[in-house]
């Protein structure tokens, strides 16, 4: 099977978030980057497991981004992907990313396209569905487990309050949630092999980006905790009503 895993680069989870240019640009100063964990731990590893199970096939990772993303891509190769593609652009929206991935994937006839359920920075959860639509593939979001036999896959996905089990045939796209696989730490051999694996840089296709960021805002500061006497119900109700305005 030919498997494609879409990976994105996100700020490291402890990064301090701030904005510049009148709150319209994310301030990258001093920010460390990692591969989006949903892409790395679940999507990529599940694709690798599938290839190992089948004993054949290939796992390609794709990223839409500038050359500064190469270290993140190399990590994917070190974990075990066979080769990588980077669409050389600085994406501003999910739509742009999806258009680029779809344009590349269209020519390649992948059996499965893997995404993380969302990125941990923008939490948009949009790219997967858009790519699948462009490629005319069914899309399963929030996959927590998958078994594959022949070209039939049984996928369990998270839904509100429970889970749903879906059977479908390839080709299809899915987005990976916790449970689909377990994190694999690259070893030194993998890191050295990654240096020799192909990382193909492809120029972007023409795309009018319909969306643009107007501004960012940080969540408001958490206010202090107010301690009340457990007997004083009237005061609690008054505060919930007048200050918190939730009742």
């Amino acid at each position, binding site marked *: 099977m030919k498997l494609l895993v879409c990976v994105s680069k996100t700020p490291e989870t*402890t990064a301090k978030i701030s904005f510049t240019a009148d709150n319209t640009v994310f301030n990258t100063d001093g920010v460390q980057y990692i591969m989006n964990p949903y892409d790395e731990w679940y999507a990529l590893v599940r694709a690798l497991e599938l290839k190992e199970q089948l004993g054949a096939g290939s796992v390609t990772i794709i990223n839409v981004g500038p050359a500064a993303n*190469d*270290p993140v891509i*190399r*990590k994917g190769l*070190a974990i075990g992907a066979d080769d990588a593609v980077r669409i050389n652009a600085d994406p501003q929206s999910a739509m742009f990313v999806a258009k680029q991935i779809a344009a590349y994937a269209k020519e390649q006839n992948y059996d499965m396209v893997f995404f993380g359920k969302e990125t941990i920075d923008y939490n948009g959860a949009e790219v997967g569905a858009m790519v699948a639509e462009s490629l005319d593939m069914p899309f399963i979001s929030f996959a927590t487990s998958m078994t594959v036999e022949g070209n039939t896959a049984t996928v369990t996905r998270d839904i509100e309050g429970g889970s749903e089990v879906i059977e479908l045939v390839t080709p299809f796209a899915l987005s990976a949630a916790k449970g689909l696989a377990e*994190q694999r*730490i*690259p*070893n*030194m*051999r993998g*890191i*050295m092999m*990654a*240096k020799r694996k192909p990382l193909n840089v492809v120029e972007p296709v023409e795309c009018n980006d319909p969306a643009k960021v107007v501004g960012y805002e940080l969540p408001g500061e958490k206010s202090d905790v107010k301690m009340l006497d457990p007997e004083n119900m009237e005061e609690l109700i008054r505060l919930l009503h007048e200050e918190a305005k939730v009742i």
Partner: protein
Amino acid sequence: MQSTENVVSHHKRAKEDPFQFHDYYNVDELLDDEHLLARNAVRDWVKQEVSPIIEDCADKAKCPTHLFKGLAEIGAFGPSLPVEYGGGGMDEIAYGVIMQELERGDSGIRSMASVQGSLVMYPIYKFGSEEQRRKYLPKLGSGEFIGCFGLTEPDHGSNPGGMITNIKDDGDAYILNGAKMWITNSPVADLAVVWAKDEEGKIRGMIVEKDMKGFSAPEIHGKWSLRASITGELVFEDVRVPKENVFPEIRGLKGPLSCLSKARYGIAWGAIGAALDCYDSALRYSQERVQFGKPIGQFQLTQKKLAEMITEITKAQLLAWRLGTLANKGKATPAQISMAKRNNVNMALEIAREARQIHGGMGITNEYPIMRHMMNLETVLTYEGTHDIHLLITGMDVTGLNAFK
């Protein structure tokens, strides 16, 4: 081997490792992508495999022998040796950052890897015959075999040249007699690289296998340091060591000393890891702990400690990086390595002591890693050449005068 399974399952849930890296001078920019990948991979591995169990292992003086396999899988054994001989084919800086991250977890875990890679695989690679290399190195690299290194004797520590362990020619074998002391990994080792004098009084190196008759490796108990690393003796009573197990060419102290250079180099990096862990913990604690109505980090005396810690860590990072750059060109001298080992280990030990003070009483318990690092570093200050011996090496190098004679 002891079972550490229960400890593992109990503690995996219990403890979260909050460590964050501090890179005050953006030293990361001096590293290649592959160094960063290697470092981050080992850091993740330590958080996953070492941190959850290490306090318990240290508390119970239990060596987590299952980690030998894990260390092999991640590629921590001989990362800078060639791939075809079980190594990782990486450069010396990669080896350094791997040691740093292991020691960030625990000096004992780093010792397990240092011994296997630099003191066992390296001499077999460097001095062994092609048959010896093919026979032992892949199995050592994969963790199937555990090795140890026997140089120190009960009466010859800083002065290994005085050793009395000896071999006598007996046809197709040598007869080995004597004893070694303080040998890391020895009670669990499948083989030992042993240094002994031949009949001409020349130091020779050889590979002694665990089931050779007359060879035993009793454990040394009661260590207050490196408690997660197992240490023992090597006792040889008329052990017949086949001649094919003896390193063919190398004679004299330069054999074992070149292995020590390799391991000391790794320790110069490793100590930074222990220091970073202490600093990180102290910095966090100084922001969380409130006394006299403010976080203790707001007091000048606490700030002095923290500021000096990060200054010393930064200097040590630059020293290690420069040493690594020289080592990559094959230009790091043993005396330069001595300087870095001495400086960086002492730096780490002093930081552990200061960090302990910042943690107040909490720093005394194993809720925090400080006392463990501090006690570990007492060994690191002493083994692979004591703090003072390294000073004398620098002294001899700069004056041209030998203080050992």
